[in-house]
Every structure is written in C-alpha cells, then in structure tokens.
C-alpha cells in the first residue's frame, strides 16, 4: 500500500539522541524529515560505539540507527541568520521537534506563526519553567530521578541505570507519540498545538517506576536482596550453556513449571502452595529446578517450558539476538547499505502495518553531517550567493 506518512513534513532541531529517536519514527514510515544539526554534529552522532572504535561523525551506532532516511542540514540556530532559516523551515513543516536549552527553545518557538505554523514539541530535562528549568541531566541522572534506578537494584547497593541512552530513547518515543497526536488533532480541528516534554516527568510518569505504585498503596518495600526467594522461580537461573529467565512465581505459572520438570506434586505441596509459607522454602525448591536445568541448553529449556505455557525465556546477549529464530523469521533486524561503511544491521520496524515484510516501514541510510544543506537551502529559496554568505559566516556547514 505504500508508506503511510508520505507527504508529512517534520523538522528536528538539537541533534540529540532523544530528538533523533523521535523523528526517526516519521522518516521510516515515509515522512520527510529534516534534521537541523549543530555545527560539528550533536550528541546523536557523537555517542559510541563506532566501527573499529574510531570516532567518526557519520558512523556512530546511534546515528546509524536513529537518523535513517532523514536529510541533514548543519545550522547555527543561535544567530539571527540561523533563526531566519529556521523560520522558513518551520513554515515548510507540519511538525517541529526541538531538544534545546529552554531559553534557546523559547527563541525558536517565537519564530513559529501562531496560526499557520507547525505543531511543536519541545524536549528539555525538567521543562520550560520552574526552579530546575536550567538544570542539565543525562541518561544516568534521569534514571535516578525517575525512581527506576532505585527500583531495579539491590538493597544497600548503588541504584543502577539501564543501558546507555535508553532513557533518552524513551523520551524520543514520547515526543513522537505526542507529536503525531498533535498534528492529527490539527488536521481534524484546525487547532495548532504546542507540546512540552520534561524528560524527568516523561519517565517518572510512565510505568516500570515506583512512585505511582507507592503513591497508591503507601507501602514501603525494601529493594530486592538479589534473586527472589519469595515468589519463585523468577529472574535468572543457570542452565547448561547460560541462563534462562523465569517469571513464574505466581499461579498458574508455578504449577506449569512444576509439571514441565516432571514434578507436578510440588505445586500442591503446602510448603509452596501456601504463599505465606513459600518464602521459607526456597532452598527446598531451588536444587530441584537447578538440577533439571543443568543438563539443558537455554533454548531447550525455553521450548520445553513454553510447551507448558510457563513464562520462561533464554537470556541473550548482543551476539545472539539477531540469530533468534523468531527475529529471523519476522525480519526483526534489517540491513541498510550505508555509504562509507557498507552493510549495517539495525532494528527494524517497531510495528508491522501490512504484515511481516510489508512496505509501510522502510529504513534508508542515515545522512552525512550536512549532506543536504545546499539542497534544502535551495528549496527554501536561498540563492547561491545567500548560501555562500551563510556558509562563509559559519551559520551553515
């Protein structure tokens, strides 16, 4: 059927991981996205890893994954000349996504025509107002703020972030979601909308956090002491060639695990069936399961447990994920021919609209920094001499 977002025009400003992750959704579904990047390239191009550990502005893994299909314009938006270009881009676009310092973002928003301009989404660490509006945060500190670092760490030890830049990617997904909703609303009722995302609020208000849960039941729960010895089997357990992960502490899954290992009577044993007694008998149960696991590979355990509808999966590392049979069958990872590098493997579509293998989603190569400057400036009506003037003064690059 073709790509659903063809004709939709999006401008991104800031060059951050969050902004890049946000607009990638639009470009991969057919939207026309212009990434306005700071001179020298921004965060999304500078974070590792790089092929061969050689830093290169066009070769970072985040850039290769999050800038697919976009056009790149290098522009210093802090100059009057830069802002004039932004004003023309804003007029061209239907959606403008900014990840900038609040004061800089405010100056850009002032360029947007209140009626005719695009919908806007502004991303900042703490929001555009309030006592913390000037604060800088990074992925680590966002996880700290949000309660998630604390929630998924061990009592008495340091709270932990997740993977590098994962929080920023989530903020980007948040911006994409509210951005496409805003422009849909505008197409329906004609009302231009401005969204504002505080990264702290976007992550703290989402799930997989503790504040909301605490606020409902006010129960102070200690952090985990390690592997769960109360609602087991849960978490990682060793098997012959690695680990599997169980989420089978509650019924009906506990019974299914017991049946799957040929010991259905364990689930009926009051030591385990009575949830008030179960935490006292972890050491009675664990050796039985460990012995069964010890002779089986993680994929053998996975396939066997799933036949019993018991929630169990293999723990995979980066070398294994692209070979997983399900991911292979669905084309969950795709190859992009990236000029200057060759074939690059990245994650594929976040969802399939026309069945697996459909053409609603397509990743095209990521642009070189500033690759489309002359093309974009020409489309915006700048003459050759005007473009030279901007370049000579360092406004474009």
């Amino acid at each position: 059927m073709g790509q659903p977002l063809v004709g939709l025009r999006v401008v991104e400003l800031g060059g951050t991981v969050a902004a890049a992750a946000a607009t990638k959704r639009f470009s991969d579904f057919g939207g026309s996205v212009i990434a306005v990047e700071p001179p020298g390239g921004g965060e999304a191009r500078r974070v590792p890893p790089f092929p061969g550990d050689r830093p290169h502005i066009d070769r970072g893994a985040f850039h290769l994954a999050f800038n697919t299909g976009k056009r790149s314009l290098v522009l210093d938006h802090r100059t009057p000349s830069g802002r004039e270009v932004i004003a023309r881009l804003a007029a061209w676009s239907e959606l403008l996504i900014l990840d900038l310092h609040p004061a800089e973002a405010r100056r850009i928003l002032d360029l947007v025509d209140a009626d005719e301009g695009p919908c806007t989404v502004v991303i900042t660490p703490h929001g555009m107002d309030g006592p913390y509006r000037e604060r800088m945060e990074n992925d680590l500190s966002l996880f700290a703020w949000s309660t998630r670092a604390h929630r998924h760490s061990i009592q008495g030890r340091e709270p932990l972030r997740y993977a590098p830049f994962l929080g920023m990617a989530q903020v980007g997904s948040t911006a994409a979601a509210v951005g496409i909703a805003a422009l849909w609303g505008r197409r329906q009722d004609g009302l231009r909308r401005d969204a504002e995302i505080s990264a702290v609020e976007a992550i703290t208000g989402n799930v997989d956090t503790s504040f909301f849960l605490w606020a409902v039941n006010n129960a102070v729960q200690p952090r985990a002491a390690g592997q769960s010895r109360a609602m087991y089997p849960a978490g990682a357990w060793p098997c012959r060639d690695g680990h599997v992960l169980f989420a089978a502490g509650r019924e009906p899954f506990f019974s299914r695990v017991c049946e799957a290992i040929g010991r259905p009577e364990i689930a009926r044993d009051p030591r385990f069936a009575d949830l008030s007694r179960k935490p006292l008998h972890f050491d009675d149960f664990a050796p039985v399961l460990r012995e069964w696991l010890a002779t089986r590979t993680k994929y053998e355990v996975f396939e066997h447990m799933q036949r019993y509808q018991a929630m169990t999966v293999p723990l995979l590392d980066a070398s294994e994920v692209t070979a997983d049979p399900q991911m292979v069958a669905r084309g969950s990872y795709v190859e992009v021919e990236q000029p200057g590098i060759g074939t690059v493997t990245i994650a594929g579509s976040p969802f399939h609209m026309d069945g697996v293998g459909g053409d609603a989603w397509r990743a095209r190569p990521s642009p070189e920094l500033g690759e489309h400057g002359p093309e974009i400036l020409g489309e915006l009506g700048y003459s050759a001499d005007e473009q030279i003037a901007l370049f000579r003064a360092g406004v474009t690059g």
Partner: protein
Amino acid sequence: MSGEALRGLRIIELAEVWAGPFGCSLLGDLGAEVIKLESYPRTSTTRPLTVPDARVADGPGPVYERANTHHHGNRNKRNIAVDIRRPEGAEVLRRLVRRADVLVESFSAGTIGRLGFGWEAVHALNPRLTMISLAGWGQEGPYQGYVMYGAGFEAMSGLASVRGYPGAPVEELIPTLHSDSTVPLALIFAVVTAAIRREESGEGSYVDLAQIEELATQIPGVLGEWTLNGRVPPRLGNADPHVVPHGCYRAGSGDGWVAIAAETDEQWAGLARAMGHAEWAADGHPWASLPGRLRDREAVDRAVGEWAQGGEPYEIADRVQAAGAIGAPANPPEGPLYSPQLHERGWFQSVDHPYLPNRLLGGFLWRLAPDGPSWDLRCGLLGEHNREVLLELGYADAEVDALAGSDVIGDRYPDPPPPGREG
C-alpha cells in the same frame, strides 16, 4: 480544556497489565474515548483477589479495586466487565467493534482469533476499524502463542545483558519492564499512523506490534557493539567508559544515593569547585583533562564518593547542579514528592477514588497547549460503566439486567473467587 487532539477516536481495549492498558490511558489523555473491556468472571492479573499481596493498599472495599499495579495504567477510560467467551458477551463486543475506530488486544498470538475476533472477522464487521495486536513476539513466526511479559522481552532483546552490577552473578539481575514503558508510546504512533492511512484508503489497518521488536529499536548501542565491532558489550553498571565521574554515590548516612556526572571539562570544573577543590580542574592537575580523569578513574570516583557522603541526596544534587554539573537524587519510591520542580509545575495529580481517597499520584508525560491532559476519569471499578456503555450500544435496561443476572456482565467477582485468568 482537557485533551482533544484525538477527540472522536473510539478505542476498545482488551489488554492486561501495563503495555496495552497504559497505552490506552495515554490515548485517553489525548482525548480519545477509551472503553476497557475487562475479562469476566476471570480476573485480570493486576487485580489480586486475596491479601497478603504487596500490591494492595489498605482500605475498605474489594481487594481487587485497591491494587497499585492496576491503577497505574487505567486512567481516562471507562470499564465494562464482560464474558466474551459466551455468545451474549461476544455480541456486546461485536456491537463495540461496529462503532469503534481501534481495537487494542494483548492476548497471546492466536487467542483473539479463537475467540472469534481475529482480524478478518473484525474487518468484516467494521472495515474502518484498525486492530492492534500486542503479543510479545508478534502474530507470526515460530513463537506464536508463547507466553511472557516485559521481563522476558528485556532478557531476549539483549538489554538485560548489559544491565546490573559489573562482575556480579547473573542470578542477581533484577528484571525490568522497559518494554512496558515504550510500547505504549509506539501504540499511540501506530493508532495515529493507521488513522492517517484511513483518511486515504477508507479502511482500517491491522497492526502487529511485537513488544520485543519495539524494544529492540530502543537499544542501538547494545546491538552496535556486536554488529559494528564483533564484541559482546559488557555489564557496566553506572560506569561510562568515556566519562569520569559517572555514577551513583552514597549520600548521607542512610541508604541514600545521588547520581553525579561531569561529561565535559566545564562540568568537571564546576564539580571540583563544589567539592572545594577548584585546583583539581586547573591546568597541570592530572584530573583537569578528560583523558586524565579516565586514567585515574578510581581515585576520582573515590574523591567524589567521599564528598557526596557529606549531605543528603537532594542536598548534594543541588550543590552539584548549582556548580553546573549533573547531579540528581537516586530517588526511592517516595523521592519525587520532595522535588520543588514537580510541585511548582503542578505535575502531581490529586485523585479521588471510592476506596483510595485523596491520593496524590504521578502526573502526565507531557503538557499540551491549548488542550492539555487532565485526569477526567479515575481508574474504573470493575464493570462500573456496564449499564452506561451497553445503553449506548442499544441495549435496553431490561436486557442489561438480564445480562447481569446471567453473569455475562458483572461488577463484582463471585464468592469464592474463580481462578486467575490464564494464558
């Protein structure tokens, strides 16, 4: 003015736990009309029937209306409880499908088809309807029908392999539910993308949103270590190979922690000043440069760690931020309540519930002007809107009574309670 961006979109939710329900709450925040059709008399997994259960708040009323996990993901929608495995219940769902724009379902792959509401069936009932399936591994492929939730997708995506304490036994890994936080956002994108397509085609789309595939899009750094360099990325904890300091440090006397990082020389100079050692950032000092701090990682970490113990987390974070570096309290569950920023911005939401009155809950993910989100509907009670919704679907009052009398719909679980929902 409450959310209106998605005004007019009617959503039916047949989903459990977080990814689907929270996504539908966000659609409600944006103005969509969401009806949660909850399984009945089988209970949702987020509605425990007995105490003790750590998820349940003290208070009056049924246990299953007081579980915190159920409340986090069910605002701004109406609740009907229907046994769609019975013909009369299936008819309720058919009527909903005929007037809806989107059906969101999170059953294991294949289940919705066996219930008579697979894509072809609902498409025949209402060609304009978009159906979004959230099975963890998607609808097609060898794992069809397999069961798991967020913790398992994290394990199979590679994300879990880089989390946790460096060098610690894998068994100590605490599972996360990251996909539950990002799938709802992708769900919104899918709903609107399908709506845009329908403007042209006149027909709804079928969207196969595999939670593990969505999660895979979030971690290019993990995959890139392998695909670009043939390396399995290590468990780093809070460390960053290229930024020192970058960690969580004990603050104060109790189990308090503060995250501190200095990503640039400028941030380091501010942090050094805050620590009373401006000379640590002066030319010639071994810690003044980025490479110097990487070389002396342990000593820098130790110095920051010793200093951070001199105050409580918020206090230390304030000092670090005042000096221009990155600092944040590593909040325990109640921590956000102490943020002047969140109060000043009016982020917390005061919500009244019959059994959980006067709660100050976490707020919205965004502001939107002029029609920002508002908490119009608190978490619905089981079957609270049965009559209201069924009347809208054309049922007469007497018919609603009959459905309730024969337990096709309900607003309380029978006593003794039935076993939990399966699959």
